[in-house]
């Protein structure tokens, strides 16, 4: 968020979600009960939710761009009355 570009912020959010998934898989692999598959199920749902959130976030970026003609994050600070 220090860069000021909305799409780059969304890419960063996707990166963080992937990092969380890596942690889940790693702890599932080396944790107490890998035969139960809890980590795998959690990661599958997390991937699905991240995909839905990416779609909605990028639709919002497109809608904001239509209104203000650029994607600078610091300029998107007014609610249209």
């Amino acid at each position, binding site marked *: *968020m*220090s*860069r*000021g*570009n909305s*799409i*780059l912020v*969304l*890419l*960063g959010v*996707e*990166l963080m979600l*992937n990092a969380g*998934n*890596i*942690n889940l*898989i*790693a*702890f*599932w*692999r*080396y*944790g*107490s009960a*890998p*035969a*139960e*598959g809890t*980590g*795998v*199920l959690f*990661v*599958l*749902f997390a*991937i*699905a*939710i*991240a*995909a*839905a*959130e*990416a*779609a*909605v976030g*990028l*639709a*919002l*970026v*497109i*809608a904001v*761009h*239509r209104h203000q*003609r*650029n*994607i*600078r994050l610091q300029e998107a600070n007014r609610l249209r009355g």
Partner: protein
Amino acid sequence: MSLAFLLIAFLTVATAAVAMALRNLIRSALLLVASWAGIAAFYLWAGAEFVAFAQVLVYVGAISMVVLFAVLLTRPSRDETEATPASAGRFLPALITGGAVLGVLAGAIVGSPLRTSAKPPAAFTVRELGLQLMGPHAAALVVIGALLTVALLGAIVIAAPGRPGDREDTR
């Protein structure tokens, strides 16, 4: 830790770091796609094959397309300059926050009891995954399906241009 694992890990982290530092948005998106492919390779190394294939299908296949579409649909006009450079005032708190999160995570990983035996655990097969999804977790599966449907419909509604029929009812 084998050489292959170290190589995959280094490539994933390096492409992600460079993707966040580049000016050009399309190159950032493509480097991040390479990072996601590296993460899928990590899932294969860890023994979660289905998750690796799901990662490739969803992230490298679908989300990269959506990101590239969004980047291409929001190109700046010719006379507008490129995005603002990262000022030092905003970079330092970001670095401190990232470092703090890294410290907390590293402390949690080192402090938690983990198996270090060399014997691989019993595999969690795709058949077992399917039985789990359709059995005890069927409600969550249905909810995720509904959530995906609603989210994608909402994304279409948000991103669609205004209907031309709305401007006419001022009589």
